[in-house]
């Protein structure tokens, strides 16, 4: 019996401050629901309301889908790194891949019109997230998305 140990454990003060984790996934669309679950819960524990959690999840899913579809041309065996960081005023997600570079001029280049069969992913990302930044560096693509908590200073 370890009664004392039990007591000690339960009186540990709760952690506070920023929170982060990283996922390395293969570029396989079957993992999209898994990442969505992860992101939805991460947004929820950080205080976002249900509707915002759903939207943040959608934006992350669209960004990941774009890496799979465009950067990796639907090859499902490549590596994607997803960094998730929760700061006092915002959530940050960054995606790193080693696929083809993107032409940022194509982001949001198609109007959101009834007829089109593609081109909505980047619009959704821009509408939902507060900051979107794409960089090509050292043969890697890095997309960073930031979403401020309601009422946060950085929000513009």
């Amino acid at each position, binding site marked *: 019996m370890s009664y004392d140990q039990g007591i000690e454990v339960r009186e540990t003060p709760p952690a506070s401050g920023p929170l982060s984790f990283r996922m390395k996934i293969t570029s396989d669309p079957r993992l999209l629901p898994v990442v*969505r679950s992860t992101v939805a819960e991460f947004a929820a524990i950080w205080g976002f309301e249900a509707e915002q959690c759903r939207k943040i999840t*959608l934006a992350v899913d669209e960004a990941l889908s774009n890496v799979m579809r465009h950067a990796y041309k639907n090859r499902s065996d490549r590596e994607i790194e997803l960094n998730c960081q929760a700061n006092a005023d915002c959530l940050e997600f960054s995606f790193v891949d080693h696929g083809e570079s993107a032409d940022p001029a194509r982001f949001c280049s198609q109007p959101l019109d009834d007829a089109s069969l593609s081109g*909505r992913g980047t*619009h959704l990302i821009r509408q939902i997230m507060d900051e979107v930044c794409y960089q090509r560096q050292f043969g890697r693509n890095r997309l960073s998305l930031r979403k401020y908590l309601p009422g946060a200073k950085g929000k513009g």
Partner: protein
Amino acid sequence: MTTATREQTGSTIVDVTGDIDMGTSPGLRKTLLESLKRSPRLVVNMRDVRYVDSSGIASLVEVLKEARNTQKKLILFGLNKAVQEVLQLTRLTRIFEIRETEEEALQA
């Protein structure tokens, strides 16, 4: 995502369950386009659709176009909040015929 298809008084009803995303929307597109070939009215039951992304939206838009091109009808019903939000964000709430219940969809 899974689909099941039923026939009812001149309509084909497709019950869709699960998430519609880049991985599953090709299957949904195929099922809906095939159903549309065999029926003048295609009714899609979205009650158990938990999630839809832009590739799912694109599949639905494509089926809608095909319905219009062939003078057929596409009706969606039972959209939950998540699905409605995506249609709003993509400004597509008005191009689809959307009903709340199966009864309303069958009468539309």
